[in-house]
């Protein structure tokens, strides 16, 4: 009799489980039916990336532009390799003498709330962008944005510069064009909706819950071939739901199609596993970013160039790559700040990087009079977990290293205090123009502000076009290696993982991206 009790208890639990199982299949979102494996119209695409704020102007964090990238457009657009194309701009002229841009808008572009795009919308948007944190550089370079007529915008610059189109290219800047009416209605407050033009329109946004966008039937697409954020855009899915990324469980969400796209999947080391899983489709975007070791140029031991050179000689980038990615297959070993498929690729200064030799480190340290005072290495284990490995490499070369492992908020705060750190680990993304490389700003923590740099940046800014600016960038790229404000490590690929029923998602560099031209197929 006694022996029956556990059986009864287990049966009760099993019965509960079976009853609950009966509910299976009640949830979940199925795409519209189609032929097996064929792209189809309709369905709900679920993307595991939700910004903390919808307003593209209030933050410099590119991942926060992920929803805006599907819903809104800019005057210019980044292609898959970050080159700059026309977006809402039909055409433009630039007068290198006066530094004035005349931008003609595309005709008949419908806005979500009704009506068509006019220069008043562009002026209001760019004025707001210029005053925002995200558009600080644009604001510094531009003296006036005005409407010539309904379809023409004039941008006057403080001094001639050919960089404006790159600074206004979306999705990897916050220069989205919204309706003047919605901006006026928001006043100084943060935007809570996005009234603009794009293949989708914003239906709802709840912080930490979801953002839902649905097809905008009035959208008038460009006709060029799709290329990253540029060219033709088609809303295949009826709706796109953005949900918070669950880093611990996203792969299982993808396997069961509870989520369709994980666009910010950082870790490459499990790529072989994902490739062998028929439920998953990994998409690798080469040249999408790089790791970086930033020096404190304002205070401490690394104000001495010999100390920076000693550290450069001590670094073994291959070991770091192996630890970070598990393989060197998906990295491009280059000294250039831009990957080899970028028009801005430059090998200037590469001989300095390639000649590094750990044996030289000790001599340079002795020359600099290094007394073994611990070097404070600030890093976030959550994103740059090679801190301990770098410590090992540096200590082998004669440095004494103190690791400061912190969370994201502490990292962001600590690095603004020049007295609190000596080097920190960060990461760069793909850029459309050298002026958008944030590490080159004087005010970026590290505070690289030498006369040689100022001269070259001024010349680069003033250049009328690419042909004029590229040689200047080559000089600046060389100066980076000569003055060593930071050490840029190898270019890395970035990984997007989708469920196997997603088609049409092409690799693209940069952080933010839209999810048009993507469809769901029935498996």
């Amino acid at each position: 009799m006694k022996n029956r009790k556990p059986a009864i208890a287990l049966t009760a639990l099993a019965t509960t489980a079976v009853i609950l199982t009966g509910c299976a299949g009640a949830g979940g979102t199925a795409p519209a039916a189609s032929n097996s494996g064929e792209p189809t119209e309709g369905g709900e695409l679920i993307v595991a990336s939700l910004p903390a704020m919808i307003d593209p102007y209030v933050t410099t964090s590119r991942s926060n532009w992920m929803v805006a990238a599907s819903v809104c457009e800019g005057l210019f657009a980044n292609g898959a390799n970050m080159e700059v194309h026309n977006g809402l701009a039909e055409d433009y002229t630039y007068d290198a003498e006066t530094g004035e841009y005349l931008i003609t808008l595309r005709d008949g572009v419908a806005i979500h709330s009704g009506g068509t795009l006019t220069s008043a919308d562009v002026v209001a948007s760019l004025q707001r962008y210029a005053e925002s944190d995200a558009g600080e550089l644009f604001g510094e370079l531009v003296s006036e944005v005005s409407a010539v007529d309904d379809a023409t915008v004039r941008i006057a610059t403080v001094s001639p510069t050919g960089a404006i189109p790159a600074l206004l290219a979306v999705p990897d800047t916050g220069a989205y064009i919204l309706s003047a009416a919605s901006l006026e209605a928001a006043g100084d407050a943060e935007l809570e909706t996005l009234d603009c033009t794009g293949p989708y329109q914003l239906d709802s946004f709840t912080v930490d819950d979801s953002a839902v966008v649905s097809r905008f039937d009035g959208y008038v697409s460009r006709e060029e071939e799709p290329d990253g954020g540029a060219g033709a855009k088609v809303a295949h899915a009826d709706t796109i739901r953005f949900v918070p990324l669950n880093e611990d469980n996203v792969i299982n969400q993808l396997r069961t199609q509870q989520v369709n796209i994980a666009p910010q999947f950082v870790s490459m080391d499990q790529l072989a596993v994902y490739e062998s899983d028929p439920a998953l489709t990994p998409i690798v975007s080469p040249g999408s970013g790089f790791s970086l070791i930033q020096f404190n140029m304002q205070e401490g031991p690394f104000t001495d160039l010999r100390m920076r050179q000693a550290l450069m000689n001590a670094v073994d980038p291959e070991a770091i790559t192996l630890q970070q990615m598990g393989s060197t297959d998906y990295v491009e070993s280059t000294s250039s700040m831009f990957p080899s498929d970028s028009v801005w690729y430059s090998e200037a200064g590469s001989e300095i990087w390639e000649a590094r030799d750990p044996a030289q480190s000790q001599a340079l340290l002795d020359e600099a009079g290094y007394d073994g005072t611990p070097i404070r290495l600030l890093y976030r284990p959550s994103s740059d977990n090679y801190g301990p490995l770098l410590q090992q490499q540096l200590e082998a070369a004669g440095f004494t290293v103190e690791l400061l492992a912190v969370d994201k908020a502490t990292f962001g705060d600590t690095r603004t205090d020049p007295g609190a750190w000596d080097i920190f680990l960060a990461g760069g993304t793909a850029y459309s123009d050298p002026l958008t490389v944030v590490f080159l700003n004087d005010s970026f923590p590290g505070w690289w502000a030498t006369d040689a740099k100022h001269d070259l940046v001024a010349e680069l800014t003033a250049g009328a076009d690419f042909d004029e600016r590229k040689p200047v960038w080559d000089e600046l790229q060389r100066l980076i290696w000569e003055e060593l404000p930071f050490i840029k490590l190898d270019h890395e690929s970035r990984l997007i993982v989708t469920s196997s029923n997603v088609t049409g998602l092409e690799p693209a560099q940069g952080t933010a991206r839209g999810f048009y031209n993507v469809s769901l197929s029935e498996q």
Partner: protein
Amino acid sequence: MLRYILGRLLAMIPTVAVPMVLLFLLLRLTPGDPAVVMLGEDASVEQIEALREEMGLNEPLIVQFVAWLGRMATFDFGSSIFLRTDVSSAVLGAAAVTAQLAIFAMLIAVLVGPLLGAVAATSRSRMLDKAMVVGSTVGIAMPTFWLAIMGILALGVGVRIFPVSGYVPLTHDFWLSWYYLALPAIVLGVLEAATLFRYARNGVLDTKHQPFVRTAQAMGIPSRTITGQYVLRAALVPVVTVIGLSFASMLGGAVVTEKVFSIPGLGALLLTAVERRDYPLIEGCIFFIAVVFVVVNLLVDIVCALLDPRIRFAGKD
């Protein structure tokens, strides 16, 4: 007993207030603030400083403290910096989700743990008892995240009985809501059941050797009556204490479970608030958790007294 309860309720004030003051100080003294998080990685030092000024984060600590004290005195937790909503409603909304999960998990734990514990105690030293003791040891030693991932792989991805993550509000679909919580509740419930099993088994074994049991046996009372009416009741006292504390712990946020299963509960809310340095939201969450702990402790003490009349409050009754 009434006096005792009133005394305990009054003692709640410093029990909650002192940690809240410490929390205020710790938050402000910890590096990192919401301005840094809000502006993002590429923000310049000047931009961060300007936003700090705008948000009042550059005010002297004492000025911030006085303002905070005034708000706390009226239970005004303000608005969340990132959620842009009232802290009280955000916390209560998330707590309701956590409570639903905690109730489901505790139901499983209470149904399984004490029952198996009693069964094991009555079949002591037999194979069944030994197997259950080993099983409970494994259960207690198992990390939550590991069992959660294994549960997802087996029942979510493998045989696809349960969804691998997510939450459906009760108001949206009653049964679907419980269904989505089933797997996380089983994970939490199984782990909790392992603990309750040990307490119940030990409690029953201890009680069976008490003099009053021998007396009852000598009086010829049937063994089943002794176990059912006297032994189990007395053995439940430590079990109820553990249930109470575990329940309070879960209400305070089953952080790992909520994070793995994407459940928008109090634990997930608090974790996100800490990552973002959303000061008002952290304070609201901690206040709620502190109150829950104190109240549940009080309730546990009352229930224990009702179960075992030998327990006296403060030696006065």
